[in-house]
């Protein structure tokens, strides 16, 4: 099962750089999966994904898929936006605590209350994906 997609009829305002290492993250997101890395020796997840484990600095990591589900920790509506985001203002962004124990900051859709159950969705822009969260259906 993949994450829900929402088509956006424009390019991302300020797209991420993609490295050889982070390419699997963005490729997976484009396919509807939210993934990150886990240290093989520590067994701990990290986000954003890293080519090593930040906890024990172990150099072996594996890609794992996340549920994309969690709770809304906080949010804001940004009215004064950086120039590249003028076309998206006002922007609703927030912080979601995933069930796997990771805290992620991203776009928020709708008007959820704090602590609401959230799910990850993929915003399919014309030039690539961005992750976002909305209240669980």
């Amino acid at each position, binding site marked *: 099962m993949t994450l829900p997609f929402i088509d956006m009829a424009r390019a*991302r*305002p*300020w*797209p*991420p*750089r993609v490295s050889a290492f*982070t390419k699997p993250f963005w490729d997976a997101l484009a396919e509807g999966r939210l993934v990150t890395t886990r240290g093989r020796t520590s067994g701990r997840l*990290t*986000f*954003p994904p890293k080519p090593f484990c930040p906890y024990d600095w172990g150099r072996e990591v594996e890609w794992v898929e996340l549920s994309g589900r969690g709770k809304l*920790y*906080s*949010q*804001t*509506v*940004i*009215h*004064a*936006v*950086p*120039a*590249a*985001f*003028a076309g*998206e203002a006002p*922007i609703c*962004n*927030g*912080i979601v*605590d995933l069930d796997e*124990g*990771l*805290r992620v*900051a*991203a*776009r928020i859709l709708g008007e959820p209350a*704090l*602590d609401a159950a959230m799910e990850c969705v993929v915003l399919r822009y014309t030039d690539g994906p*961005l992750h976002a969260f909305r209240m669980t259906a």
Partner: protein
Amino acid sequence: MTRRVAVIGGAASPCGKLQTAVGSPLQALEHEILAPLVIEAMSRAGLPKEEVGALVFAMCRPYTLQKYFATFLANYLRLPLKGTIMEVLGNGMTGGMAFDEAVNAVALGHADVALALGINMESQANSAEHMMTTMRAVGDVDFHSIFGFTPISWYAMDAVRYMHEFGATRAELASVAVKDRRHASLNPIAQFRTPLTLVEVLAARPIVEPLGLYEVPPRSDGAVCLVVCAEDVAKATRRPYALVRGRGFFHEGAHQINEVPNDMTAFVSAQGAGAAAYRSAGITAADLDLAELYAPCTIVQVLAGEALGLTPRGKGAAQAAAGETSLGGRIPICTSGGCLSRGHPAYSTGLLTIFELWEQLTHRAGERQVRNARLGAGSCELGNYNAALVHVMEAVA
């Protein structure tokens, strides 16, 4: 070698609009603003220029054309230096780090007198373009900035969470801006000095919800110079001075948000830095007569005040509304008017914090003087208070 260090002099420009527009026929030049402040600060210190052994600058904004501004100014002032000369950068902590490094230069014996100084010019920059740079400083460029998080958007999320958890009201938060403006009305270098009402603060257009125009920082230019010296040098001047009594620092090892869910509004770095500063000073928060906090938004002043033990957790906004953090109250916070009304020339703000403490502790603060002020704390931070630097200063007359 380490020894006790004092602030013996200081001078600051008014905060506000000093910068001129590109193409303006007459330009405001940074060195022509800062150099006279150096001379004034040294005059207030009662020390000859030959005593200066180190210069530590808060780095200039990218809008300042002169590069290697520090050595340029050493030439402009004809100041040979046996200690050190450097420009430091640490986001919002920049000015505080400049002061910290000047203190270190003296404490370590590299210089008997060191200047901590800076000039921040940015008021002519277009805000939307300016944020294209600042958004890259307050988040992961590839995983946060892509959503358009601005520096103050993180503080706005603190406010939302804080109100949710503790039941603090919008009016209580907004009262911090009213209080700061009242303080600023008594400060000759403040950018905004006309009184502000609670109704005006609450009715202001939203910038980052729930915070409106008067609860977020203005764009400010500003310049400041502090004279830092060994305590025996300060004593020999027979002038009052502010002794660096304690210092604490903590960085939580996180950039904006902790990837492991934690209590974001606890400001753990301010807790850690404050505790270390109080410990090294041999005091508790209750001993302080005033605190000058780096607080670009109303909510930040509330949370930093709680983390530093000035107000109880969850009660900071209510106590601000009740006047406990006002001049004349239990523990006056931001007697300068703070970032919101004194002004926020960001890279120099940490220096202005110490400038205000020096003015208060040497009883130069005029109408905003805290009576019998003996101990004051100053804080600065970077990110969403991911790091904090706290100094405890003591009046010695």
